[in-house]
C-alpha cells in the first residue's frame, strides 16, 4: 500500500512538473507578445508609414525600412522559391529513390537548420566582395538561399500527398511526366505549395543576421538594387541598441510590425494545411 502511494505521488509530481513546463512556455509567448504590444502600440502612428528613419533626436518613421524589407523579401522569394519547387519536384517525381535524392534531402535538411549568419558570410564572400560594396541584391540573394530549403521540403511533401491514381490516369492518357506534373500534380498540390511559400516568407522576413553584411542599412530612401538598402530587422537591431529614446520607440514599433506579419503568415499557413487535411480526411 505504501509503495503504491509512493508511485502515485511520484506520478503526480512529474505530471505537475510537466504542467509547469507547459505553462512556462506559454507564459514566455504571452510575455513576449505583451511587451511587443505595449511598447509597439505606443509608437504606432501614421508617421511610421510616411517618413524615413530619422537621425537621432528627431522624429521620423520606418518607410524606407519597410520598403526595403518588402523588396528584398519579395526578390528573395522570387529567386528562391522556383528553385525550391523545382528541386522538390525532382525529389518527388524523378529521383524518388535514387541515391542522389537521399543526399539532397539530407543536405537540404542541414541547410534548413544551418545558422543564417553563415549564409550571410557566404553571400558576402561571393557577391559583396566581387561587387566591392554592399547591396540590396546581395541581401535578396541571402534571403533566397534561406527560402530554398523551406519551399523544397513542403513541395516534396505535398507532391507525395497527391493520390497516385491521378498520376497514373494522366500517364494512361499518354502524357509525359512534365505534362502530368504541370497540369495534374501542381494544381492538385497547389494549396500545399502555397503554404510552403507562406512559411518561407515568414522565415525570411524576420531574418537579421544574413542582412547585416549583405544589404547593410541605409538611412535614406533608396530604390537602387545595387546599393545598400534599409531593412526593418537591421534598423530594429541598430535602433534598439542605441541610447536614443526616439530610436528605441521606432525599434519597438518595427518589432511589432514584423512579429504581427510573421504570426499572421504562419497562422494562415496552418489554417490552409488544416483545411487540406480535413478535405483529404473526408474521403476522396
Amino acid at each position, binding site marked *: 500500500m505504501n509503495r503504491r502511494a509512493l508511485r502515485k505521488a511520484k506520478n503526480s509530481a512529474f505530471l505537475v512538473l510537466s504542467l509547469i513546463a507547459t505553462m512556462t512556455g506559454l507564459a514566455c*509567448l504571452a510575455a513576449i507578445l505583451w511587451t511587443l504590444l505595449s511598447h509597439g502600440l505606443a509608437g504606432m502612428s501614421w508617421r511610421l508609414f510616411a517618413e524615413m528613419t530619422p537621425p537621432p533626436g528627431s522624429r521620423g518613421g520606418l518607410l524606407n525600412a519597410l520598403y526595403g524589407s518588402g523588396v528584398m523579401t519579395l526578390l528573395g522569394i522570387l529567386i528562391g522559391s522556383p528553385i525550391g519547387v523545382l528541386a522538390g519536384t525532382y525529389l518527388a*517525381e524523378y529521383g524518388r529513390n535514387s541515391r542522389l535524392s537521399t543526399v539532397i534531402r*539530407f543536405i537540404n535538411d542541414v541547410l534548413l537548420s544551418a545558422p543564417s549568419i553563415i549564409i550571410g558570410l557566404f553571400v558576402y564572400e561571393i557577391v559583396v566582395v566581387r561587387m566591392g560594396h554592399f547591396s540590396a541584391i546581395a541581401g535578396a540573394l541571402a534571403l533566397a538561399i534561406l527560402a530554398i530549403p523551406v519551399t523544397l521540403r513542403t513541395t516534396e511533401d505535398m507532391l507525395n500527398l497527391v493520390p497516385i491514381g491521378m498520376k497514373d490516369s494522366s500517364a494512361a492518357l499518354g502524357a509525359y511526366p512534365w505534362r502530368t506534373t504541370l497540369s495534374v500534380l501542381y494544381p492538385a498540390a497547389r494549396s500545399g505549395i502555397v503554404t510552403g511559400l507562406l512559411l518561407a516568407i515568414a522565415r525570411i522576413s524576420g531574418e537579421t543576421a544574413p542582412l547585416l553584411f549583405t544589404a*547593410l542599412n541605409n538611412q535614406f530612401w533608396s530604390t537602387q538594387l545595387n546599393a545598400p538598402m534599409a531593412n526593418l530587422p537591421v534598423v530594429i537591431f541598430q535602433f*534598439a541598441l542605441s541610447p536614443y529614446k526616439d530610436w528605441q520607440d521606432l525599434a519597438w514599433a518595427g518589432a511589432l510590425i514584423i512579429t504581427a506579419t510573421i*504570426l499572421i503568415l504562419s497562422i494562415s499557413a496552418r489554417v490552409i494545411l488544416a483545411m487540406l487535411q480535413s478535405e483529404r480526411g473526408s474521403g476522396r
Partner: protein
Amino acid sequence: MAIIDPRHAAKQLIYERIFRSATLSAAILVLLILGGVAVSLLRGAWPAISHFGFSFVTREIWNPVTDEYGALAPIYGTVVTSAIAMLLAVPAGFGIALFLTELCPPLLKRPFGVAVELLAAVPSIIFGIWGLFVLAPVLQRHVQPWLIGHLGHVPYVGNLFKGPPFGIGVLTAGVVLAIMVLPFIAATMRDVFDTVPPMLKESGYGLGATTWEVMWNVVVPHSRVGIVGGIMLGLGRALGETMAVTFVIGNAHRISSSLLAPGTTISSAIANEFTEAVGDLYTSSLIALGLLLFLITFTVIAAAQAMLRRLESRGGFAA
C-alpha cells in the same frame, strides 16, 4: 486515326528533357550551395588560418590594434551559452511534450500545440530585444542577487556566480537561448512520442503502470533515438543563433569563470564586428570564426538528422 503524331511526340520528348533537367539542376544547386558555403568560407578564412595556424583556436587574445586574434573566448562563450540553454530547455521541452501527448485534454491539444509552434516562428531579433529590455532587468534585480547570495560562497560552484549582477551576460544569453530552442525541442519530442504504437502504451497501463511509469519505461526507451535527434537539432539552433545572443551577452572578448560576466559567442562576434572590421587579417579572422561555426553546427545537425532518419525508416516518422 493518327493518335500519335510523330512530330508531336518528338516535341513532347524535348519538353520532357527540358523540364527534367530544370528540376535536376535545381536539385543539384542545393548541393552546390552547401559546397559553395564551405569553399568560400575556407577561402575567406585562409589568411587567418595560414597566419595563426592551429593556435587560432587555442588563444584567448582578440586585439584589433596589434592584429592578433584567437578564437578561444568566442568558442567558450558559444559552448557555455548553448550548454545553459540545453540544461534548461531539454527538461522543459520534455515536460511540454509529455503534457501535449499524455495529459492535455483533446480539445486543447491543437491550440496548445499551435502556440508552441508560434513561439518557434517568432524571429530571433524579437527574442533579443525582449531579452535586453525585459528579461535582463528581471534577472538583474531578482535572480542574479539571489544566485550571488546563496551560491556565491559554495566552494567550486561559487565561482560561477561571482561578481556584480550586470543583467546582461553569459547566463542571460543562455536563458534567452533556452526560451528560443524550447519550442523546437518540444515539437520534435511530441512528434517522436506520437510515433510510439498505442498498443505498447496500453499494455503498460494494462499492467497497472502510472502515466509517468508508462512514459519513462515504455515511451522514452522506444523513442530514444528520436529524443536525442530532437535535442541535437535544438543544440544546432542554439550554437548558431546570432541576434538573440548579440543583444544580451555583452560582447566582451574574454573568458571569465563567472556566468554573470559579459562574454561573446562566435556568431555574436561576427555580427558585431564584421562591418566595422578594418584590415584583411581582422576580416579573415572573423570569417575563420564563421568557418568554425559552420563545421560545429554542420556536425551537430547532420548527426541529428541521421538519428531522426533512422527513426523514420523504422516507423513512418516525418522529421
